[in-house]
């Protein structure tokens, strides 16, 4: 069965610093990969997705992610973090023929002012 691993439970960065959140997937074929953000009391919001093609994908709010097949990774990055980016971030995937999303356990981002 496919799985998604987010190795970092908590990350703290200073405002203005760069950010990288790690995500590893386990699946034989190329998966469909997603990053979602969840703020307190809010629904999950899609930041970006990768299906195929260019391995560097741009998303909303200045986020980007790079698909690396050799490392089975899909890390999320942002060059300069804002205090409003503090939230929980989830990496997710589903297979080509499926419909259900498989989520990682999430990374809680704290931004220090």
């Amino acid at each position, binding site marked *: 069965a496919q799985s998604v691993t987010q190795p970092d439970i908590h990350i703290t960065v200073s405002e203005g610093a760069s950010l990288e959140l790690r995500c590893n997937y386990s699946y034989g074929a190329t998966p469909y990969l997603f990053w979602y953000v969840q703020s307190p009391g809010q*629904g999950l919001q899609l930041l970006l997705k990768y299906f195929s093609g260019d391995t560097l994908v741009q998303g909303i709010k200045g986020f980007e992610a790079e698909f690396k097949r050799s490392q089975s990774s899909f890390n999320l990055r942002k060059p300069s973090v804002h205090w409003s980016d503090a939230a929980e971030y989830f990496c997710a995937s589903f297979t080509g023929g499926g419909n259900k999303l498989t989520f990682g356990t999430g990374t809680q981002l704290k931004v220090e002012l």
Partner: protein
Amino acid sequence: GAGVSQTPSNKVTEKGKYVELRCDPISGHTALYWYRQSLGQGPEFLIYFQGTGAADDSGLPNDRFFAVRPEGSVSTLKIQRTERGDSAVYLCASSFRGTSGNEQFFGPGTRLTVL
């Protein structure tokens, strides 16, 4: 336009009681999903509807859980004989079609607490 809405936002019940959680998907979305998010975990898939029928209910944990979508729009997740372990946030999502290329839009969730 309106997003996915879920009611109630919070539900507190006692062990053994029956609860219903409602989801109103985005108008025109044919696919509807239910997920459960326990504390400190990512959401876990429960069931997926394409139209009125449950196309995949492999995530329902046991027969105490049941969901319906009689007219292909609003869905209700029903939990019988609730247990303390059912306490979680129940998330609903909808997408235009139930295919991998379609983004799932999530509602704010219903926080269920079983005392």
